[in-house]
């Protein structure tokens, strides 16, 4: 296991290098001239030429890439062409927002999805099972954008319980911070809860049919103990894998949800950056997101060992 983990850690650097080449290369395929976009309504050819020179857009692609990577290796993700602030500063501003939103959404998803999956499996073919499946199906098939707007209209406009949009940092005012993020977190968590529910149910159904579960029951263990300690622990491995992937997706930014609720996270930043051809921001955010993704998968690998001690010797 230790060797396996060592290999996984060693894969991080080439993975990130590959991501850097991909993101740099792919955005060159985007149509549109960054200088033209940055200039707004200014069309003076001299101004456009000056922008291209200033941003190294008049150099060859390999030179541009090496220039960027050289800066990245020195801890400098570059300057936003549009906002004219360091990308690292922007990432540092957005990362806590995205982390908070992702954590809350993930918590909501786990709190709803995993128990619902367990109940659906334990009470197979009962009304509870059908209810859990119906809720899961609704969660999967409801577009986040629509659910977000509906929640805003109901909870904020009609009932006036929560602010419709915006974001307040936790450190500034935790109550206001929760008030501004609970709805987007619910919207995001809702669809992930549905996925987790269905996978938990399926994995639990398999586990509950195993001999060791029958043995545990035969030994007279409490049903909760059988379900939680024996069946769930084994059923959780695919759920943890899925959870790590979903959390990774959340961290890469929930574009539509952030847009609807005006949450200034990674998703909103990268969309703005793509539309404004702000290449350094796109590159910086994708690189940081890729890093987070790789780390999360590594954590998932470690969790397998915690959940299933047999893997320690694998």
């Amino acid at each position, binding site marked *: 296991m230790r060797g396996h983990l060592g290999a996984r850690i060693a894969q991080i650097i080439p993975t990130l290098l590959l991501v850097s080449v991909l993101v740099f290369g792919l955005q060159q395929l985007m*149509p*549109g*001239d960054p200088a*033209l*976009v*940055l*200039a*707004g*309504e*200014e*069309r*003076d*050819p*001299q*101004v456009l030429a*000056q922008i291209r020179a*200033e941003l190294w857009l008049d150099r060859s692609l390999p030179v541009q890439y090496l220039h960027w990577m050289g800066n990245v290796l020195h801890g400098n993700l570059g300057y936003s062409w*549009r*906002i*004219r*602030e360091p990308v690292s500063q*922007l990432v540092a*501003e*957005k990362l806590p927002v995205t982390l908070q939103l992702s954590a809350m959404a993930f918590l909501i998803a786990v*709190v709803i999805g995993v*128990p619902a999956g367990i*109940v659906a499996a*334990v*009470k197979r073919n009962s009304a509870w099972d059908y209810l859990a499946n119906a809720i899961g199906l609704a969660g999967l098939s409801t577009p986040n954008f629509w659910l977000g*707007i509906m929640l*805003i209209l109901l909870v*904020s*406009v009609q009932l*006036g*319980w*929560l*602010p*419709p*949009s*915006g*974001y307040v940092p936790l450190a500034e005012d935790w109550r*206001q911070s*929760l*008030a501004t993020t*609970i709805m987007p977190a619910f919207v995001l968590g809702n669809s992930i809860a549905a996925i987790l529910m269905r996978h938990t149910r399926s994995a639990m159904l398999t586990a509950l049919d195993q001999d060791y579960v029958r043995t545990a*029951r035969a030994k*007279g*263990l*409490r*049903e*909760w103990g059988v*379900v939680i300690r024996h069946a769930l622990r084994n059923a959780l491995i695919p759920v943890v894998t899925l959870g790590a992937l979903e959390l990774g997706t959340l961290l890469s930014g929930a574009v539509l949800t952030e847009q609807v*609720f*005006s949450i*200034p996270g990674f998703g*909103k*930043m990268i969309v*703005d950056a793509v*539309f*404004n051809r702000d290449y350094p921001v796109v590159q910086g955010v994708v690189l940081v997101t890729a890093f987070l993704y790789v780390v999360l998968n590594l954590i998932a690998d470690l969790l397998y060992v915690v959940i299933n001690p047999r893997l320690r010797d694998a």
Partner: protein
Amino acid sequence: MPRRAATTTRNTSTNKITDRDFNIMRRILWASFLLAIAVQQSASAQTLRVALRQDLDTMDPTLSTTYVGRIVFAGLCDKLFDIDEKLNIVPQLATGSEWTDPKTLVIHLRQGVKFQDDEVMDAEAVKASLLRDMTLPGSYRKSELGLVDHIDVIDPATIRIALKAPSGAFLAQLTDRSGMILAPKVAAAAGKDFTQHPVCSGPFKFVERVPQDHVTLERFPGYWDNKAINFDRVVYQILVDSSVRLANLKAGTVDLSENIVPTDAAAVKADPRLRLVISDSLGYFGITANLDNGPQAKNPYGQNALVRQAFDLAIDRQALVNVVYNGMFAPTVQAVPSSSPFYDAALAVPARDVAKAKALLKQAGVSLPVKLELLAFNNPDVLQTAEVIQSMAAEAGFDVHIQSMEFASSLAASARGEFQAYLIGWSGRVDIDGNTYAFLHTGAAGNDGHYSNATVDKLLDEARGMTDLAQRKAAYAQMWPQLRQDLPITYLWIPTNIVGMSAKLTGFRPVPDGMIRLQGLALGK
């Protein structure tokens, strides 16, 4: 083993999760939900909250290009001159000005004005700010001030600007970002980092900016017109989605929202807690024809003015704005709104005439249907506009194919001449020169269709060089008949600025530039 035996006995009797367990889970979930909704918002009565349609770029007026950036600057940076509701140029940091000859402008400055860092705003500061606009690498103000030859400080309250050539449009440049005067010491020390801590002489000073989220300004107690200011803070909230802007307005979490879309206007009107203010904007929307920019110009629409005239007659502008914009925009065939002193009342919007359009196509000798690629960026309303035009033009004998493209890509395609007709607008400038010269003069930077007409060039040059309003109006009036004949741009409508606000908000001035002027604004009870 007594403990295990006892356990066995209890569980074999139930062997399932009990109702009690479910009740506990349900209570936990309800408690979490109620805790969440119990967290309420709080708002300060001293804060004005303004919703903006998009994020701004930089907070440096020299380097800024966005429209919403100008709205924030209206609170942060005073200008030498401003405009009023009727597009008259009025003094702001200046107290007056005069042309001592056609190339020399003398500006008298307001005394006792301080920057937000307590520096004094005087002629040296104005000169430094203008020179920064003209020389800072990457400045987008260079071309606006390109006519400036040199600047002299006459005394602390007077400055003289010498131009390379006469210009009737020059003063209007000083009503926007070129006229914003920056605190000289901060600007010199910060250079391009001025955006991080901008300091000007406006009514509010910079507090913080969180990109994609908000900009916060705080009242500047030393503001020269302090009695006109009624708020302690202004928060500009970026709300990109129009329905979210409306929801915030209805929920009372913003006090004022610019750019209410026409389809949401009825909802604002119907709400007694809200008020809708509508005014002309400075811009226009139209179809730019590719007349001579690369191979894509080689088609009947690009090569034959009769075909463009037929296309023009096939469009029912009023029906178009009724369908797409609930009739809230004004159909037009010229580049300025009716509030502009350069508006030509003699230029009537033609009624749709399909029969005449067909006759013109016949006269042009083109084979039917006339195929045309219409480039449109992929905003829903722009695409809907393209579809309505497609349908109207089909009845006259056109086969319009809509080429939908993301905005930045469409701009690049237009610059490269990769279009036949391009559905595009212009945000507009105070002076007509800013709405015409760059798009109609031979070789001008924004003339993507490569239109070239000696008469139009001559009139544009003459009008630009005049300082007498009546003479300038006469020059432009001579230009329009030629443009209506050539149709390098088929003007469609003048958009309106639609602002939604709390009914308690008073003192809002609807100026065609769409800026939100904070002087005089107040929130009643």
